[in-house]
């Protein structure tokens, strides 16, 4: 018996690939890999053969040719003379702006709703339950369309602001106009502007660069001041009075720069068909933003609640025993530990938001799907190319988001020492 069970090594028979447990799993894996690759090759080959039969090739040359259509919301320079590649970038940036705005606001809403759902107040926790259940259980597309329809149907057209006795009026001392096209807000204007730096695709306002640089420098100066005060306190036991110096360092440089550049607010004004001046948030953007925020916020609320519930009650009791008040207990003891449970599912919610922005087509928000995957695809007839580029773009964006979030996750996760 002992002799036969000993692998001899010298006599290998083909049947051993199937009957010998040492080889069987490898055989099966190789077989599956081969079948998978063959299936993939068949798909590619079939696509190419069918394209060839229709007289079509795969060619990305159209990206360099003139787009010919206009886009309403653009963060970089674009006209209808720009290339399809530029339209792709415009769409990508519109997607990213929406995704970033929605991720930020959904997190805020989600954390608040998640914490409040555990509130001891019956009313508050029930209201939050209703919010979560309503938004989680109705498809996102419906929310987008409902919000957009409400925005277009119940708000007045710009025309209603016209004439001697307008039927609608602006809010906040005539600075904000809410219309069925979008919301017009005051914008910043510089009388003695420093001009723009033209980088080809984008022109950046020098004014803002200067302001941001000043604010960063101020914060750095403030930190240095606090550190010095700390050193003095260590040495002498008395903390020098710094509040007026801090205030000066934090506020003065920016204020002086604003005055020097002649900063003032520009109010939107009804001129011709539309309001002009100030800044403008289109209803398509607002509808997408609100819908994504409320919808994903409901999911994040559940993640937050689960995270908090995962921290054992003993932690709270211990914190109370140490004399911590309930909200300090939450901020100092519970949330930091709960974050470890909350962050991994939060990553997938961020990815969901990013991918769900592609529903923007429903309300005519010009995102990636509407530019590259919509008008460009349709006008050039390059379905396969556009879809491949579109998938690649979403893939890269998603990988970047999960990469960044994983770095953050590693920094807060339980470090075992």
């Amino acid at each position, binding site marked *: 018996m002992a002799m036969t069970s000993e692998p001899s090594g010298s006599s290998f028979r083909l049947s051993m690939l199937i009957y010998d447990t040492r080889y069987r799993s490898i055989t099966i894996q190789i077989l599956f890999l081969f079948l998978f690759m063959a299936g993939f090759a068949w798909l590619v*080959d079939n696509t190419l053969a069918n394209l060839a039969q*229709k007289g079509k090739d795969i060619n990305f040359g159209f990206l360099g040719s003139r787009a*010919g259509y206009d886009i*309403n919301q653009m963060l970089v320079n674009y006209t209808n003379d720009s290339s399809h590649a530029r339209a792709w970038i415009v769409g990508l940036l519109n997607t990213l702006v929406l995704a970033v705005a929605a991720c930020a606001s959904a997190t805020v809403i989600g954390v608040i709703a998640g914490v409040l759902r555990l509130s001891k107040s019956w009313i508050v926790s029930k209201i939050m339950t209703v919010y979560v259940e309503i938004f989680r259980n109705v498809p996102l597309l419906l929310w987008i369309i409902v919000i957009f329809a409400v925005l277009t149907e119940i708000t007045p*057209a710009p025309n209603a602001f016209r004439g001697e006795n307008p039927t609608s009026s602006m809010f906040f001392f005539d600075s904000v106009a809410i219309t*069925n*096209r979008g919301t017009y807000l005051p914008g910043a204007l510089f009388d003695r502007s420093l001009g723009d730096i033209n980088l080809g695709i984008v022109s950046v306002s020098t004014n803002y660069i200067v302001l941001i640089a000043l604010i960063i420098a101020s914060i750095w100066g403030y930190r240095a001041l606090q550190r010095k005060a700390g050193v003095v306190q260590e040495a002498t036991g008395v903390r020098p009075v710094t509040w007026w110096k801090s205030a000066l360092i934090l506020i003065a440089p920016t204020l002086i720069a604003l005055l020097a550049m002649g900063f003032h607010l520009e109010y939107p004004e009804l001129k011709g068909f539309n309001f*002009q001046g100030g800044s403008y948030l289109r209803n398509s953007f607002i509808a997408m933003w609100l819908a994504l925020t409320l919808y994903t916020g409901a999911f994040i609320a559940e993640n937050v609640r689960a995270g908090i519930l995962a921290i054992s009650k003993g932690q709270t009791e211990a914190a109370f025993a140490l004399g911590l008040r309930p909200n300090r207990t939450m901020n100092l003891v519970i949330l930091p530990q709960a974050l470890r449970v909350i962050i991994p599912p939060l990553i997938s919610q961020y990815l969901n938001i990013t991918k769900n922005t592609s529903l923007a087509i429903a309300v005519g928000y010009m995102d990636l799907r509407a530019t590259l995957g919509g008008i460009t695809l349709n006008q050039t*007839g390059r379905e396969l190319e556009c879809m491949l580029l579109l998938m690649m773009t979403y893939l890269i964006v998603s990988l970047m988001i999960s990469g960044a979030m994983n770095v953050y996750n590693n920094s807060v996760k339980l470090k075992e020492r």
Partner: protein
Amino acid sequence: MNKTVFFGAMTAAVTLVAGAASATVLDEVKARGELNCGVSTGVNGFSAPDSAGEWQGFDVAVCRAVAAAVLGDPKKVKFVTTTGQTRFTALASGEIDMLARNTTWTLSRDADLKFTFAGVNYYDGQGFMINKAMGVSSAKELDGSTVCIQTGTTTELNLADYFKANNMTYEPVPIETNAEAQQQYLAGACDVYTTDASGLAATRATFADPENHALLPEIISKEPLGPLVAHGDDQWADIVRWTMNALVAAEELGITSANIEELSKGTANPEVDRMLGSSEDDLGAMFGLDKQWAKRAIAANGNYGEIFAANIGESTPIGLARGLNALWTQGGLQYSPPFR
């Protein structure tokens, strides 16, 4: 398995599949017993279901005529709704056999998207519609306006060109379907709606207050609208083309749905006899149809003039004049090559 053998087998299989798929469209339609015809999601007068759920309209009539010619029954049509964005994919993929959806004949659609236009059933141009209360009387006054525009259309490109050429700016509101455009326009979310002038007239006719909306005098483009098929099956393209020609020729020759039975018993005009299949000549056999194909196509909805009058003509709420779409003998552009 040997790799080359494997790929050899693979290629053979693909060719087999491709071979099976390359039966002619005519055979496929006959085998299916139904014509898949792509139409709009709803433009009153051109293609829209009526209160009984039956598709009606100027474009629908083309589908019905082709079904009558090929299958012998104008009812054997499956209407597939397409938007400006989905229509070409539907046609290229074979989901529909032909597309009759207010589609403009352009060089790139012909040569680059690889479609064959079977002719022009409506010579049109792009116009603008605006509420009369806005006090605008010319498209040149539209600087700074918000414009509703269907995406994936020629009209979207013309719009960009027109405003650029006239040094004006506008805010495009991209829209998927005509119904959506109508809702946005009526809510005042856009000042102007622009598309083919025929489409504007058709849309306006469905408003509660059509008299308050004006079409501006400028027509900014040429939009020859017609049915199309995919490249690669000339026989099928010929069938659709000559079905359309039969409708126009019938108007010219005075063949109407009222007198067609009478005329098909034989007339003094050999061309009428050839068309209606009452002489020795068998024109239908030349593209795989029978002798009576044209007779059935005309009998389905009447000749071109009858179809025009019934769906979009001056006695309908849409009220379009024949204009460019009159017969060539009456100063228009509708002209059929000879049936010979």
